[in-house]
């Protein structure tokens, strides 16, 4: 059990905070947001700091750090509201490859990721999936040594900058069966990118992808045919962990900024911080943030520890459900305490709020995760 950062994790966080404070100020972020969020120079720095290799095994040239390190770094990224696809292209896609692909295949994919030369994204969600983790209508048909992919992927964030997609497609079964899903590595130039710059609430862009009978070699498959569900789950869990860290970082920043604002701003002849009702709402923000932090550590320990599928699933669901409501309460309250200016795009507050709501929804909203818990009451 680990309940706080160790020295090396603190060092990682300090390094990230220092870099982001100067290089990722709110004004610079605003410029990057206008371009969909990705700045190759920033990404290059991430690579140089070793963050892109943080979680990969040494064998692949990574640093081999675990769940708590991901949490530490993600917290700083959430604090700075980083728009880069760190969770998607490193944590999520990386976990997929490392968990699912054969070592040689994995090495070939991972090394350019670590170097910052390749952006690989999972293309899994489809329009009718809602939050169902196994909803795949896209089809993969094997014929004469090659595989033909057909289907449509929905709302893939950062798709416009990916060079490679890992596409989920169904080889057998019905549209929501866990069995029968496979993952395929597809170069982005084989895919039609629709709506390349559709804005999302967190400030990034998303696109739909169309695979209109794309033929790829069988060797592009990651893992065994039809057996991608557990690989997807492992990647989803680690991506959620990253989101929890980012959420906690964002909430922490909101508590600080809101406290500062209340102390600075005067109304009716005294600082807002003198009004007890506003102080109590600030206290509520702090309480929700501590709850979210507990959720993040709960998830980190579940993913760091001995694998126990039931326990891990429940832990992730509990943590994600908690973070969603905490993020909402903190975001809403921060806006309310800032008053009019909190409802504009000019202040960071609204951006944090939108980003928190985004993380509350992505990979399953609170209702979805509570239903996961409810479905297993009494089984742990």
């Amino acid at each position, binding site marked *: 059990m680990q309940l706080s950062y160790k020295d090396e994790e603190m060092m990682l966080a300090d390094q990230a905070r220092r870099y982001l404070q100067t290089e990722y100020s709110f004004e610079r972020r605003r410029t990057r947001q206008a371009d969909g969020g990705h700045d190759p120079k920033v990404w290059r720095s991430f690579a140089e700091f070793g963050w892109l290799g943080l979680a990969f095994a040494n064998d692949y040239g990574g640093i081999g750090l675990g769940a708590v390190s991901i949490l530490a770094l993600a917290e700083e990224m959430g604090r700075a509201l980083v728009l880069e696809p760190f969770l998607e292209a490193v944590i999520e896609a990386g976990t997929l490859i490392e968990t699912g692909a054969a070592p040689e295949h994995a090495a070939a994919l991972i090394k350019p990721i670590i170097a910052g030369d390749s952006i690989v994204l999972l293309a899994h969600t489809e329009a*009718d999936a809602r*939050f169902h983790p196994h909803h795949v209508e896209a089809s993969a048909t094997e014929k004469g040594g090659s595989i033909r992919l057909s289907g449509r992927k929905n709302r893939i964030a950062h798709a416009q900058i990916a060079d490679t997609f890992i596409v989920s497609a169904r080889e057998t079964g019905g549209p929501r069966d866990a069995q029968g899903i496979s993952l395929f590595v597809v170069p982005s130039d084989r895919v039609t990118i629709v709506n390349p710059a559709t804005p999302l*609430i967190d400030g990034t862009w998303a696109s739909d992808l169309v695979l209109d009978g794309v033929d790829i070699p069988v060797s592009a498959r990651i893992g065994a045919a039809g057996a991608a569900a557990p690989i997807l789950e492992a990647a989803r869990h680690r991506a959620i962990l990253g989101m929890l860290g980012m959420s906690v970082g964002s909430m922490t920043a909101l508590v600080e900024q809101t406290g500062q604002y209340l102390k600075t701003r005067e109304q009716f002849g005294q600082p807002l911080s003198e009004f007890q009702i506003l102080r109590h709402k600030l206290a509520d923000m702090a309480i929700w943030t501590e709850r979210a932090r507990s959720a993040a550590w709960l998830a980190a320990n579940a993913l760091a520890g001995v694998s126990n599928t039931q326990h891990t699933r429940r832990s992730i669901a509990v943590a994600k459900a908690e973070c969603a409501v905490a993020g909402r309460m903190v975001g809403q309250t921060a806006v309310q305490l800032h008053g009019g200016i909190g409802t504009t795009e000019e202040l960071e507050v609204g951006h944090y709020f939108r980003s928190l709501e985004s993380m509350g*929804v992505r990979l399953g909203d609170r209702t979805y995760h509570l239903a996961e818990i409810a479905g297993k009451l009494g089984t742990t």
Partner: protein
Amino acid sequence: MVAESNTEDKGFGGIDQAFHDEVAQFVSANLPADIARKVDINAPLNKDDYVRWHKILHSKGWAAPSWPVEYGGTDWSLEQRLAFEEICAEHSAPRLPQFGVGMLGPILISRGTDEQRKRYLPKILSAEEWWCQGYSEPGAGSDLASLKTRAVREGDEYVVTGSKIWTTYAHYADRMFALVRTDSSGRKQQGITFLLLDMRSPGVSVRPITGINGQHVVNEVFFDNVRVPAKDRVGEEGEGWAVAKALLGHERTGIARVGFCKKQFALLTQISSRLDITGKRLLDDPVFAQKLAALSADIEILEWTNLRVLEAVANNRGNGSEASVLKVIATETQQRITELLFEAAGPASLDLAAADGPLPEEDSAYVSSFYFDWRKASIYGGSNEIQRNIISKTVLKD
């Protein structure tokens, strides 16, 4: 004042069917479909949308129901006016900005000069002139009376310097009615004067403020030695606070927005009724249905609270905090609606609808925009914290 000017039927005996049908049929037959669609999905409306609908209502004589007939209003009771607003909202008509018809009009009718009424009322009624409201100032927050924009009398003119903020649709407006400070020696509520000014006067500039949802509705307005003829002052110099306040206390039909809430509930039902791949609707999910049930109960409670408040005020039985209670209940209900819309949309809530460009097809396209934007409801018009201050004062009678 306005609310009581022609309320013969204070008993709230119910709207007769003929009136209801006439309004409903007129709206259904005359509301342009493109505007209705925007309203249905909470897409932003532009000036042209508002003006088109205003002119259609004007052609029917319904552009300013609360005004006396002599100025182009109606002889409707308070109850009928309320019903009119609600029926319009339920039938997808946009809520027209109220700065001219709802706010300045009544002020001019009760406090303006004949000349002012003749000059301004007809163009408000016809939508030829668009007004905005210059009350809030940077740094004032809920402390409205602390305003600092100065007006200095020079001969037949006032010279205005300062700025206003959160000015809704200032970028559409031809004119502004504004509170300015002509004297800073007394209490902060004193020395305030109510002026009508031309937005095209030299020295007026408008800075757009982009909302949390990316849309441009409010603005900051700067005055650099803007000259306003003294005849465009409403009331006496230094009595602007009383002029503004007389209105604030009486215009209550617009707080609850029950028809709007019902319309949103219809959208929520529609979004939740989409069949998924397994043939199920979100509406049939027991957990979601329970949330919808609680929300529909909330809307009904809001509706009855609204009726009770209006009846109490019409019969002079209010204790003074009714509008505050109503505002809290209404905005909390509305915000709860936006949250449930956001949830119903699922992953589609991740999309941030563009502020302009072609209208998206999906019913849920604007749910996140609406959710984020509507946080303002508990901030503007006296934050809900201020409303609770008022309510507690009434309970404690201090």
